[in-house]
């Protein structure tokens, strides 16, 4: 605990509030001295991205805490010694070395075993496969990967074409980077076309695998309506070619019959990391001019990358829904760009994934179960900084960009997306720990932590998009976004939290949500009145005791309640 610390407003005013700084096991907490407000600012250690100590000034030592949520806290600590201590403690606390130090594992969550177990059964991936009609006479579950025998970064339960025999599966997996052979991720019931995912083939300059070729053939045959499949390599073609020198690469169209190869050109994780950093840096420029801002936006390349990711999704969705052609998607390892492209295609194709529960399931399937390396990418543990990259940030942002174009199509609002992303980084729940299903199983996370999903669901009232209506035309069928560059916007809600310290502006969405809540109450009141009013007018004197013999008890109770309400009015 350090007293007389100043929290400096990073906006132009640079006003400071005096208060006390506390460091707990999990949070940095700043409590204002002002007895009227006693405003508290909490920062989770796992969300701290960096702590900086600019040179000491006569008024004290500055500490600048940057969070993974793009917030910046600037503190002025009177004693240099305190500042050094805080800096050292935070540096250590924000960089856990072991999983056991993480919030969800260190804050003893075993208190309520039943509740915890229930939280993990909130989503059922297999039920979602059944929802899309799988298994069926084209696609079947395979036990090949039980106990993660074939591929340790894949889930144990997988769907493959009915004609794919175990030797084909094993053979194909041997010909694919890290054993990630082609498996089903989405089945489109309307056209019977499907989306499959895998990693790059180990083709080098000339290698081929009969089993892998048979696997692709099997995928094509699993779609009776089409005589070819698309293989979407989400990398720039140059990168894919460079991989051939390392014995990897892409499918040779001469070896695979009836495939059409398509490169999309999403850049690799290193490019994306640097690009996001530029966006973050831009947010810290003090009073930038419009030119600075637009130039910064352009030179960061961020929106260009967002467009590339969305373009990949659009290509796949169109192939599946409009051409009725199945698509096999891969990048290098098939866990970053492939996850982005596949999950976006699902959002575009299937209205269910535009609901809250649907999006949760989608993330659980395309990201969590298929081995997106959450702990590496989001720096859960102090590790290799080159492994860190905002891969899921880009997916979440693409969904936001879509919601800007289709304001009635999504059940959730911007806040939901921001919260979801926050928890990918926060480690408050066990969902995103580790880098694969196997790792999570080995850590016994289901016994030791809670799942995020039921918590989000419980708070859903604050995540509802008031414009969403299940029967709205935008809610039906496939979304066809416009991906002309001018349709992409900088996501201010995500990257410019700083501005929020200005007085809150009216949000139409919040206002509409409030109006809708009020409407529901009115509807309720109206039904109550309507049940009462006609009889009330007939013989109002005995209203209280009035009850027709054919009236059901429930109605009667409701009627009493409504009368009570009226008196309160």
């Amino acid at each position: 605990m350090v007293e007389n610390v100043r929290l400096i407003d990073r906006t132009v005013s640079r006003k400071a509030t005096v208060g006390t700084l506390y460091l707990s096991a999990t949070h940095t907490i700043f409590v204002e001295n002002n007895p009227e407000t006693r405003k508290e600012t909490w920062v989770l250690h796992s969300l701290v991205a960096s702590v900086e100590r600019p040179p000491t000034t006569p008024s004290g030592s500055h500490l600048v805490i940057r969070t993974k949520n793009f917030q910046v806290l600037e503190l002025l600590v009177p004693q240099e010694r305190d500042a050094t201590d805080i800096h050292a403690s935070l540096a250590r606390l924000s960089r856990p070395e072991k999983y056991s130090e993480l919030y969800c594992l260190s804050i003893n969550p075993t208190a309520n075993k039943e509740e915890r177990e229930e939280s993990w059964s909130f989503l059922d991936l297999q039920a979602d496969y059944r929802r899309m009609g799988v298994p069926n006479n084209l696609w079947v579950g395979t036990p090949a990967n039980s106990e993660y025998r074939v591929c340790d970064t894949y889930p144990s339960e997988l769907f493959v074409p009915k004609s794919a025999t175990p030797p084909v599966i094993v053979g194909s997996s041997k010909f694919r980077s890290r054993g990630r052979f082609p498996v089903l991720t989405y089945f489109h019931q309307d056209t019977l076309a499907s989306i499959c995912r895998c990693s790059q083939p180990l083709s080098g300059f000339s290698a081929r695998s009969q089993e892998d070729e048979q696997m692709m053939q099997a995928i094509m045959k699993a779609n009776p309506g089409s005589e070819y499949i698309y293989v979407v390599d989400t990398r720039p073609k140059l990168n894919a070619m460079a991989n051939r020198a390392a014995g990897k690469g892409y499918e040779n169209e001469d070896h695979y019959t009836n495939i059409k190869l398509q490169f999309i050109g999403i850049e690799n994780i290193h490019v994306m990391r640097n690009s996001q950093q530029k966006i973050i840096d831009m947010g810290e420029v003090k009073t930038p001019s419009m030119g600075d801002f637009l130039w910064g936006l352009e030179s960061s390349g961020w929106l260009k990358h967002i467009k590339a990711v969305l373009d990949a999704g659009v290509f796949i969705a169109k192939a599946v829904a409009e051409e009725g052609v199945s698509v096999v998607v891969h990048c290098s390892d098939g866990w970053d760009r492939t996850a982005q492209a596949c999950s976006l295609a699902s959002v575009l194709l299937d209205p269910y994934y535009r609901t809250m529960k649907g999006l949760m399931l989608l993330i659980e399937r395309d990201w969590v179960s298929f081995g997106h390396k959450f702990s590496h990418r989001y720096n859960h543990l102090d590790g290799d900084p080159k492994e860190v990259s905002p891969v899921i940030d880009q997916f979440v942002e693409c969904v936001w960009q879509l919601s800007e174009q289709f304001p009635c199509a999504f059940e959730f609002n911007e806040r939901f997306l921001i919260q979801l992303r926050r928890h990918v980084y926060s480690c408050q729940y066990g969902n995103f720990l580790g880098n694969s299903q196997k790792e999570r199983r080995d850590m016994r996370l289901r016994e030791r932590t809670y799942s995020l999903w039921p918590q989000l669901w419980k708070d859903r009232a604050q995540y509802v998009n008031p414009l969403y209506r299940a029967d709205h035309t935008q809610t039906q069928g496939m979304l066809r976004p416009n991906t002309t560059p001018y349709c992409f916007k900088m996501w201010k809600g995500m990257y410019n939290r700083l501005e929020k310290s200005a007085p809150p502006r009216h949000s139409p969405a919040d206002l509409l949500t409030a109006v809708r809540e009020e409407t529901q109450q009115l509807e309720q009141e109206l039904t109550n009145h309507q049940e009462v009013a006609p009889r009330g007018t007939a013989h109002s004197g005995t209203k209280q005791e009035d009850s027709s013999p054919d009236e059901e008890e429930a109605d009667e109770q409701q009627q009493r309640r409504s009368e009570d309400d009226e008196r309160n009015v």
Partner: protein
Amino acid sequence: MEFAELIKTPRVDGVVLRRPFQPTVEGTLCLTGHHLILSSRQDNTEELWLLHANIDCIEKRFVGTLGTIIVKCKDLRVIQLDIPGMEECLNIASSIEALSTLDSVSLMYPFFYRPMFEVIEDGWNSFLPEDSFKDLESMTDEWRLSDVNQDYCVCASYPPLVAVPKDVDDDTLRKAAAFRHAGRFPVLSYYHKKNGMVMMRSGQPLTGTNGRRCKEDEKLINATLRAGKRGYIIDTRTIAVAQQAKARGGGFESEANYPQWRRIHKAIERSSVLQESLIKLVEACNDQSHNMDRWLSKLEASNWQTHVKEILTTACLAAQCIDREGASVLVHGTEGTDSTLQVTSLAQIILDPTCRTIRGFQALVEREWLQAGHPFQQRCVQSAYGNGSSVKVRCEAPVFLLFLDCVWQILRQFPCSFQFSEHFLVLLFEHAYASQFGTFLGNSAAERAKLKLSQKTVSLWSWVNRPQEAQRLSNPLYEANSLVIWPSVAPQSLLLWEGVFLRWNRSSRCLDEAYEEMVHIIEYNKELQNKVNSLRRQLAELETDDPLQHTE
């Protein structure tokens, strides 16, 4: 002159109309004195009625005998007409060119237009200076309405009546006018009820290179200061530009002669720069082949958003001086008819909730733009496709459009504080450039009086203030907000005004649907509220009736 002389071919059959995001229409093209009409002569198909005045420029192309005319409109829409027959096509093209560039104002459509609606309230009388002065009188007695400009002799671009400090007589005004650009002496623009501070506007002082001064001018503006208080002069030009103006007889107020005033220079660009900016922006928006880098760099290079930011920043500064510093403000640039008006009108939107209502906004446009002498006709003679071929002095500039863009930015940041919606702003943009109404014709009150617009044409306000139209333009989210609203001018808070610049370049269906959904949610809520209230009343009546029944 007869229009028929200009129409070489009045009618062509088999013309195909192509518009982005809309089905092509094949039909008959007709030219009238004021309209280009395309009709398929089938039921249920949309006809195109385009005012010639809305046509910014046309381009012709030929493939064999099939001619194509690309019509680029002032509202930024681009349409294509495929016309069979080379001669017909050439005739149509030259007719359109002639009809869309008529010299005489009195040949414009507003002089021929007869309203198809009942004029309930004549818009020409809706916002008279006398009426707005009555409002001022109810707040303060320090001002008077002077008719020194009764015959437009003192200042050709001012209205006959202007509000000035009570203690300053007409003679002083005349002398001050001689010291200000085009006779635009300082007049009242806005009175801040909360603290009695005022905003004035004028043209630049004519100090010239040898630092001329004018005691009457000093007296006039000093009369607005409270004892011991300093005021602010906001010069919308940079100090360098203001210095240069001295060589042409203009200049700025020196500290020596105006010791009670602090001068602040801002950097709002001149008209010609703004026009160039608009051309670049629209070109960028219309080219769909750009990749992201190219789009962003073209957006930046157009500088449009920079102008928006600069104008808003200056308006915020003026509002801040008045509301936060408790000081009076004088705003001017060079002429005082462009950037000055952008600043004074936007500052009022920030400060005065009345300006955020439908009627209040009309009053603001009437007061601060039309009466204040913004040369609409000159500025709006061409829009973004003007190719500079006109031999006239080039004076077109999107000054008013930039003002509307800035209003849109504030509206977007405070979506519940405006009684009107974006539709109203778009409508004003369209009508400023081409209209069946006479409101935006002419360049000043004097010109409008000479043209007898109020007798010979219909006012846009007559149309807008009909209940059904006012309803269409209103903002369903509106909740009266009596506070001063401070917009953010950070670059990331300022967006491209898609409703104008991308309007024809993408389908707006989903956004329109969202808007309808929003309206539906709010109207359904109101409907229920009414039902519930009436039921509650009925019940209350019954309950009060009950005892009576019993006693009877």
